[in-house]
C-alpha cells in the first residue's frame, strides 16, 4: 500500500511559509500569484465567517433558531478551497460550508432561514454563484456532483484547454461521510466517467461523537488510490495550501485530467451542532492541541510579516461586527412562510392532490377564523 506522506503544508502554525521543495514549489508559485488584495480577502472571509458563527450560535441560544451548525476551526479549508473555484465552477456543499457560500455570493441569512425552520434551503444556485443547496443526508450530494460534472463534460464545457471557460465541480463531504456507500459509488462513477470534479474531504477528526479511526484506520485520501483517483492530503488549517492545491486540482480536472481527491486535515473546534455536547466524547487536550493550530492566527501572523497594518486588522474586525449585527437584525425579523406554501413546489407542474389539499386547508383555516 502507498506509504502515507505527510500532509502538504505551506504555512506552518507559527505563521512561517514553507521553503520550496519538489513537493511545495508548484503550490508556492500559485500562492505567489496572489495579490495582497486577494490574500487580505482570505483573511477577511475567515474572520467574518467566524464572527458570523458566533452570532448565529447566540441567536440559537436565544431561541431564534432551532439548531446551529458551526464551522469554527475549518475556516482555512473552506475559504481556501472556496476561493480556488473559478466563477464558472459549481460547488456542492455538505451543510457546514457557510464561508464557501458567502464567497460565492450567497446571502448567509439563507442559512439561518433554513436552520430557523423557514425553508429547507430554498436558495437558487444560479443566483448564488453556483453554490448548491446543503444536503443533510450524509454523502448523497457526492452523486449529484458527479452527475453534474458528467453533464459539464457532455456539454463539451470541460477539457477544451481554456481554464477561463472550462468548468469543474467541487463537492464537500466529511470524514464520516466516507463510510456511506453513496460516496464510494460517486468515486466509482467519477473515475469511470473521468468527470471534471474535485472531491474535497474535510477530515475534522469527528463524525458527531465518532472518531475518524472508527471510519478508517488508513489515511482517507488513500481512498482515492482504490478507485484510481489521484489524491493528496493537506493541512486543512493552512488557507494557502487549501487554496493552492484546490486551485491546481480543479484546473487539472477542468482540463480533462479526470477527478481528484483532497483530504484536508482540520478540526471541528465547536460542537457538532448546538444540540451536541462534545464533553461527552472528547477531551480538552485534543481541543487545545488543535486550537494551537488555529487557521486564522497563523495567517494573521504571516500577513503581519508581509506588512499588513493594525488598521487593516481593525477594519476587518469592524466589518465582521457590522455583518454580525446585520445578520442579527434581519434574522430576528424573519417571518413565517404562508401555510399553503407547503403545496407550492412539491411538483413543478399542476397536481390534483396539491390543489385539493391546498383548497381544503384554505377553507379549513377560514372556518377556524369564523369560529374564533
Amino acid at each position, binding site marked *: 500500500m502507498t506509504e502515507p506522506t505527510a500532509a502538504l503544508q505551506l504555512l506552518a502554525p507559527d505563521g512561517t511559509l514553507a521553503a520550496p521543495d519538489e513537493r511545495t514549489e508548484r503550490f508556492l508559485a500559485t500562492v505567489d500569484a496572489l495579490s495582497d488584495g486577494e490574500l487580505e480577502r482570505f483573511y477577511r472571509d475567515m474572520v467574518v465567517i467566524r464572527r458570523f458563527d458566533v452570532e448565529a450560535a447566540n441567536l440559537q441560544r436565544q431561541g431564534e433558531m432551532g439548531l446551529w451548525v458551526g464551522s469554527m476551526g475549518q475556516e482555512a479549508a473552506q475559504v481556501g478551497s472556496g476561493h480556488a473555484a473559478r466563477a464558472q465552477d459549481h460547488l456542492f456543499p455538505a451543510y457546514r460550508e457557510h464561508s464557501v457560500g458567502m464567497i460565492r455570493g450567497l446571502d448567509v441569512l439563507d442559512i439561518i432561514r433554513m436552520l430557523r425552520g423557514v425553508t429547507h434551503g430554498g436558495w437558487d*444556485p444560479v443566483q448564488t454563484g453556483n453554490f448548491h443547496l446543503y444536503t443533510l443526508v450524509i454523502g448523497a450530494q457526492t452523486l449529484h456532483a458527479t*452527475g453534474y460534472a458528467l453533464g459539464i463534460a457532455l456539454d463539451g464545457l470541460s477539457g477544451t484547454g481554456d481554464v477561463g471557460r472550462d468548468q469543474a465541480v467541487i463537492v464537500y463531504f466529511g470524514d464520516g461521510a466516507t463510510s456511506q456507500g453513496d460516496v464510494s459509488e460517486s468515486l466509482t*462513477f467519477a473515475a469511470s466517467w473521468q468527470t471534471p470534479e474535485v472531491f474535497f474531504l474535510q477530515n475534522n477528526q469527528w463524525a458527531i461523537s465518532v472518531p475518524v479511526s472508527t471510519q478508517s484506520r488508513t489515511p482517507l485520501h488513500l481512498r482515492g488510490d482504490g478507485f484510481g483517483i489521484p489524491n493528496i492530503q493537506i493541512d486543512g488549517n493552512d488557507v494557502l495550501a487549501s487554496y493552492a492545491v484546490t486551485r491546481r486540482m480543479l484546473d487539472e480536472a477542468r482540463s480533462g485530467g479526470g477527478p481528484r481527491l483532497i483530504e484536508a486535515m482540520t478540526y471541528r473546534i465547536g460542537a457538532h451542532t448546538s444540540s451536541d455536547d462534545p464533553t461527552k466524547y472528547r477531551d480538552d487536550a485534543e481541543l487545545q492541541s488543535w486550537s494551537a493550530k488555529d487557521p486564522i492566527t497563523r495567517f494573521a501572523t504571516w500577513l503581519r510579516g508581509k506588512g499588513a497594518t493594525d488598521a487593516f486588522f481593525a477594519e476587518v474586525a469592524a466589518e465582521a461586527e457590522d455583518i454580525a449585527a446585520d445578520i442579527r437584525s434581519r434574522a430576528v425579523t424573519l417571518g413565517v412562510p404562508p401555510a399553503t406554501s407547503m403545496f407550492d413546489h412539491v411538483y413543478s407542474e399542476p397536481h390534483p392532490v396539491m390543489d385539493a389539499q391546498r383548497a381544503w386547508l384554505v377553507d379549513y383555516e377560514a372556518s377556524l377564523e369564523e369560529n374564533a
Partner: protein
Amino acid sequence: MSQVRELPLAKAINAGLRQALLDDEKVLLMGEDIGPLGGVFRVTEGLQAEFGARRVMDTPLAESGIVGTAIGLAMRGYRPVCEIQFDGFIYPAFNQITSQLAKLTNRHEGALTMPLVIRVPFGGHIGAIEHHQESPEAYFAHTPGLRVVTPSTPHDAYWMIQEAIASNDPVMFFEPKSRYWHKGPVDFAGSGIPLHSSRIIRSGTDVTLVGYGAMVTMLLRTAEIAESEGTSIEVVDVRSLSPVDYGPILDSAAKTGRVVIAAEAPGFASVASEIAATVAEKAFYSLEAPVLRVSGFDVPFPPAKLEAVYLPDADRILEAVDRAMTF
C-alpha cells in the same frame, strides 16, 4: 392514412424512447446493460447504435449511483431516463429516490425542476427467480414528490413514456414485464393521453373491477367469464398510481355499487388499500357491498412454481365478484 401499427409492449416503449431521444437532445438513457445488449428485456435495443454511447449509457453496477448521478444531470438541464433492471433491484436507490429526487424541487422552492424518469419492469407471471417478479409501486406512491404511472397496453406505453419524459417532475414508470411480448395496436398519429388519467376500458352494470398494469388483462378475461355467467362487469384501468384519477373509478362505483380492486402486490398498506379506502369513503352511499381487494398474499414473492397461486387470477377475482354480488 392510418398510423396504427401492431407492436409488442416492449417495442412500443422502445419506439417511445426513440421518439423522445429524437425530440429533445437533452434526453439521456442510463442504466445497466442498456447499451450493446439493449437491456435484459431489449427495451432499449438499437438505441445506443442510433444515438451513441453518450446518450445511451451503460453505467457502473450501482442503482443509487445511477439515480444519484441522474439527479445531478437533471440539475444540469438534462432529462435522464434511468432503467432499473428488475423491480427487486430498485431498493439500493431508495434513499436517492425518496430523500433526494422526490424532495429536490420542493427543497429548491421551485428554483429547479427534476425531469427524471425511472423505468422499472415490474410484476410476476414470468416464472423468474427471487427479486425478479415484485411489485414495489406502493413504496413510491406513498412518497410525496413522485409521480407514479403504469401503462397496460402498447398504445398507452408508447404515449405515456413520452409524457413521462416530457414531465418536469420525477416519474416512476412501472412497466408490466409480463406484457412486454404481447402485441397491441399503437396509433402513432394519436395526440397522446394525459399522464394521469384512469380509464373505463369495459362497461358493465353489476360490478366494477379496478386494476393496473398486467392485472388489467386479467380483469378483462375475468369480465368475459363473469359475463358468460350472467354478471355484467365494468373494468377500470387505473394507469396512474400517484396521483390516482378517481373520477372514472367513482363514476363506475356509483353506477355498479360494487367494487373489487385487484393487484399483484402484497395487499397490506398498498395502492389497493388506498383506492379501497377512498372509494369506500367517497361512494359511501352508493355502495351495496364492501369494497373488496384481491392481492398478492402478504408474503415475499414465492418461488416460480407457486407464482400461479400467489398472483390473483380470474378464479380468485371471480370469487370476490361473487362475494360482492351476494353480499
